């Protein structure tokens, strides 16, 4: 059984989309979508970029480092935005943390 689901996002978290949520490019409508039970969500460009980096391996800190380097932006400015966005996703049940597989 899975542990507690609700996560608190910090720089050390290694978040990933839960199995019920799939990030996919919709060719027909030419937009990125997150497919989830009974819902189709349309993440904005920044959310898509962040979520593509959230693979359950990288920590939030590493994601922020990568974005800061890519956009030559101050780390602190990105940090708050990214953590707020990820926490919001987590609160809605669209983000989880990688966990050890139980045999």
């Amino acid at each position, binding site marked *: 059984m899975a542990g507690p689901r609700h996560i608190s996002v910090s720089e050390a978290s290694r978040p990933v989309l839960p199995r019920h949520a799939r990030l*996919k490019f919709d060719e027909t409508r030419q937009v990125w979508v997150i497919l989830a039970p009974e819902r189709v969500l349309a993440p904005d460009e920044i959310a898509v970029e962040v979520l593509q980096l959230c693979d359950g391996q990288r920590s939030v800190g590493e994601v922020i480092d990568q974005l800061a380097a890519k956009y030559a932006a101050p780390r602190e400015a990105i940090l708050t935005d990214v953590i707020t966005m990820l926490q919001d996703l987590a609160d809605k049940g669209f983000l989880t943390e990688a966990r050890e597989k139980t045999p």
Partner: protein
Amino acid sequence: MSDVLANSKAADPGDSLAVLEKQRSLAETFGIPLAVLAELTHRCPLQCPYCSNPVELDRAGSELSTEEWKRVLSELAEIGVLQIHFSGGEPTARKDLVELVRHASGVGLYTNLITSAVLLTRDKLSALADAGLCHVQISFQGTETAPADRVAGYKGAQHRKIEAAKWTRELDLPLTVNAVMHRQNLHELPEIIQMAVDLDADRLEVANVQYYGWALKNRAALMPTLAQLEETTRIVEEARERLKGSLAIDYVVPDYYALRPKKCMGGWGRQFFNISPSGKVLPCHAAESITGMQFESVRSNHSITWIWQHSEAFNRYRGTAWMPEPCKSCEFREVDFGGCRCQAFALTGDAGNTDPACALSPMHETIFKQAQREAEGETNRFIYRNFAGGTPETGENGG
């Protein structure tokens, strides 16, 4: 089931995440729906008295073949459908379900299984997961074994459902618990919420019965009282706050007690269609209850896109031009699109009338009072759903 994709509560304006419906005005273009309900069969081992299938069920012999369903699934993916809900009847009664799930996944569809779970085995579920199944929704009739089995008309149903829900999570598949609520089980709601938590479900649908088809036949035995409904709303709101981030709760109220009708199916022919076991393309899974309407089939020479855009059935109640008064001049006409066509037909005899759930309908008062009388009444016996048009409950249950 709840209104597919019509939920607006997932996102606030300004969020990085928007519900796609909100962002793109499908209302203007009648673009192809994002999700489609595929009713693979009307066969089902359960006999729930509120079944959402039409009273006139499709026989096994008329069901689409495996090859026909595969062609339909490919066509759906090609025209821009993103999600497929495999439903029924009981979809696991189809021997080719694994094959259909594999095909749907192969063409890129997000696949959801809506099941009573009583026919599932761990091996079957495991094979479905391997075939690419994304999500499992299991319906529950309650938490207490005997009353739940009585509603299902199937001894041992509750036990099998609990087992299947556990296997679902063991296989790391996401789980929705769909709890169908009515007067005779609403008192169990706190236990149902706890059951969903204990089963490690991702979502819980607290779905009050919607009263057409079989449920309308059984309305006197199922209709909750207003007091029950108010208590239910309070319990749901409390649980939502307490379980935020770990269990999402969707809540569907019976519209008899509302002043405004529900935006049924997001409006006729606006954002939803389903495909019946025999291949009819329908604006709503209850649409065949409206007698005198002709619905096109995937077995016809027409494409699904053509049926959606041009068929007479989809256009008859689409938009606002068909509306009579009081809808025609109503400021809410594009908010609820006149409510539910099937309910208007069932209760007024004309699908083109205002849904009597609306306080502005001339029939609202009569119907609301009748429902209230039924809710306070003593009739608890069911008429069970089956291919024979229903069988009255016997034995000591009910009054």
